[in-house]
Structure formats: C-alpha cells, structure tokens
C-alpha cells in the first residue's frame, strides 16, 4: 500500500498476501488501512477470534483467503506518510519480539525505498544510500522542509525532489541537502 489517493499494493510475497492487499483496497478497511490512518502499528494475532471485533467485511474474506493473523505497520518518515506494510500469518498468534522488531525496521526501509522509486533512482544508487544510512541525517530532513517551502509542495514531494536531484547530478543526498541548508542551492 503506498500513497494516500492511489492506494494499491506495490509488492507482495504470495497469493495470500496479494489477496489480503486486494481486499483492503476494495473494501477500504483492514490492518493496513488502520495503520495508515491511525499512524501506528495495528496487530491482530487472531482474526478468527479477535479481541476487538473490527473489519466486518474484511475479516471473513481474509480468513477464507488463508490468513489467521494480520499486522499493519505505518510507512513514515516524519511528516512523510507513504502507506503501510502488511504482514500476515497462516496460523493465529502474535509476532515474536524479533519478528515485530524486524517488521518495524522493514517498514522504515520500505518507506525510503518507495521514495527512491518515486525519484526514479538507479538501482545501484539506492543500495549505496541505504548502506550509508543517509536518510537518517538531520540535514536531509531539514532540507526536505526547506524545499517543501521553496516548491510549495508537501514534504513527501520535497524529499522525492531532493533525491531525484541527487541521483541526476550523481551526488550523495547528504551533500545536496547540505547545499540547501547553506542556501547555496535553491529549488524552484
């Protein structure tokens, strides 16, 4: 699930997860929808016997598709909200602490990956950025705020514009960001 208006699945790992994504897209309810709208992790370890009955349309169909437990994790980078990561299990039960931690980390990685995809990054450049963890430098977040004002766009779009600039000029994202906050580079 990615983006506010154009909700849909970007990637799923098998037929069951594809079905679960499709159901949420069609029905407009489910763990991903809640995770995105409420901006928090949504955990349902037992779909057949939920602690809080919810998703009246989604639940029976998800069970039918073979899911027994579903989990949604928001994809966000500050003000940037990109959708939610969906995880399911074919048996009931909570995620282990390790699986849960992995899902949180994965949601972060996917969020940055989505930004890069939208910036039309070259595949190689993406790996390099992730390796260096450039995303986490404050200067990059500062620059996204600055560029959002300069271009009159959302921080999400500003982040994509920064990345697209970095990729097209073949410079590290952090250097481009530094130029922006030192007022050496302007967008728009």
């Amino acid at each position, binding site marked *: 699930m990615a983006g506010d208006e154009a909700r849909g699945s970007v990637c799923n790992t098998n037929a069951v997860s594809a079905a679960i994504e499709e159901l949420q897209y069609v029905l407009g309810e489910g763990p991903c929808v809640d995770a995105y709208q409420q901006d928090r*992790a949504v955990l349902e370890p037992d779909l057949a016997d939920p602690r809080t009955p919810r998703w009246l349309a989604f639940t029976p169909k998800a069970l039918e598709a073979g899911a027994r437990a579903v989990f949604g994790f928001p994809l966000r980078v500050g003000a940037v909200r990109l959708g939610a990561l969906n995880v399911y299990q074919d048996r009931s039960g909570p995620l282990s602490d390790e699986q849960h931690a992995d899902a949180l980390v994965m949601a972060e990685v996917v969020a940055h990956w989505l930004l890069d995809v939208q910036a039309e990054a070259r595949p190689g450049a993406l790996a390099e950025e992730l390796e260096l963890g450039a995303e986490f430098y*404050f200067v990059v977040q500062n620059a996204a705020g600055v560029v959002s004002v300069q271009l009159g766009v959302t921080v999400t779009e500003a982040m994509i514009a920064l990345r697209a600039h970095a990729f097209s000029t073949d410079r590290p994202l952090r250097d481009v960001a530094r130029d922006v906050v030192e007022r050496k580079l302007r967008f728009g």
Partner: protein
Amino acid sequence: MARETALVRSLVELADTLVSDFDVIELLTGLANRCVSLLGVSAAGVMLASPDNDLRLAASSSEAMRVLELFELQAQEGPCLDAFRTGEPVEHQNLQAGVGPWPRFASGALEAGFRSAFALPLRLRDRTVGALNLFNAGQTPMTDEDLVVARAFADLAAISVVQHWSTIENQLLNEQLMRALDSRVLIEQAKGVIFERAGIGMAEAFDRLRSYARSHNLRLTKVAQDAIDGSLDPAAWGP
C-alpha cells in the same frame, strides 16, 4: 538559587511532566538543558535505539549543526554507542584528535569545542534503550555527587520513553522508541520549513518552534506537524 534547590526543582518538574500527557522530545530537550545548567557541562544529548539497535539522536541541549552531527557520528563510534552496547557508563575521557577509542568522534568533538566526554546508558529493567551523553569544554571529571545526579537524569530519560505503564513489553517499547525517533525527524523537517519561511538559521528555527509550543501550551510534535502542513500562520515564526 542554590544548586540543591535548583536540582530538586528540576527533578520535581520532570517527574510532574512524566505523569501528564507529554511530548517525549520536548521532555528530553528540557532534560538535556538541565544537565547543562545543573551539572556544569557544556552540552548534553539523549540518543535512543531503534529496534535494529541503531543509535539516533532524540534531543540535544544545543541545536548547532556541529553538535547535532557529533551525535549522528555516534551511530558508528563514540561514548554513547559504547555505553549503549555495554550497558555500562563510559567514564570521563579526555579527547585527543584522531586517537583513543573513537578517533573520528574525538576529532569532531574537538572541532565543536569539547575536550572531554562522558556517557551513561539509559536502562529500563533488563534493557538498554539509549544513552545520555555529556560534553565538556574543560577536562575536569565530574564529582561523585554530579554522577549521582547524571544517573537520575538518565533514569528519567529512560522512563519517559515508556508512556504506558501497564505493559513494559518489548513490542510496545520498540514502537514507542520508533515513534520518539520519528517525532524527532518530524521536528527536523519543521525546522527546515521555518528556516525557509522566516529566513533564519536552523538552531533559531528550533527555538521558535519550541517557544511557540510552550507559550501556546501545545505539544512540540503537534506544532511541528502544523508548521509543515502550513496550518499555522507563517507570521508565528516572525521574531
């Protein structure tokens, strides 16, 4: 005000904040500032761990870019990372450029004007969730009394991350750590917005954000979100 009085007042204020609906980043920023004023150090910062044990900055007593970057460097090396990994304090250490256990960190610290450093782990029961880092322009170690105070601040910082007392369980804790770190990212984006709208520096942008939140009795994170959305009057950022 006598130091003892100031200390008691600080601890009471922080404890009061902890029982209300508070903003983690605001609380940690206040805590870092109090470390500076009460322990006589030059700068203080709180770093928190993401679920994959990446250490990231949550709050600092200084918003100077150099200081913020010094904390960012500690994702790779430095007293914070050591305190976090070992769960033990990293004792006072005089810094020399390019040498010692953290050569890059030491060089960065000296460039920022700090000649010694010290770090304490933030502990919650059997888990270490981050570290408190103190910097000094001088090289005199803290007294044993100061260490006790620093420990109390570190404990308060750790507790502040857990907002739901009923369950200190790992999954919830991880979500709250991620949320706190993401709040910090949101604030950095808002600093950029105000920097550009008001034509001021980043550190000043943070000050204006914080004083707006305080004077209007709003959560720092909420004001940051509103600044980004443009739902706050841009005139709010004027001098």
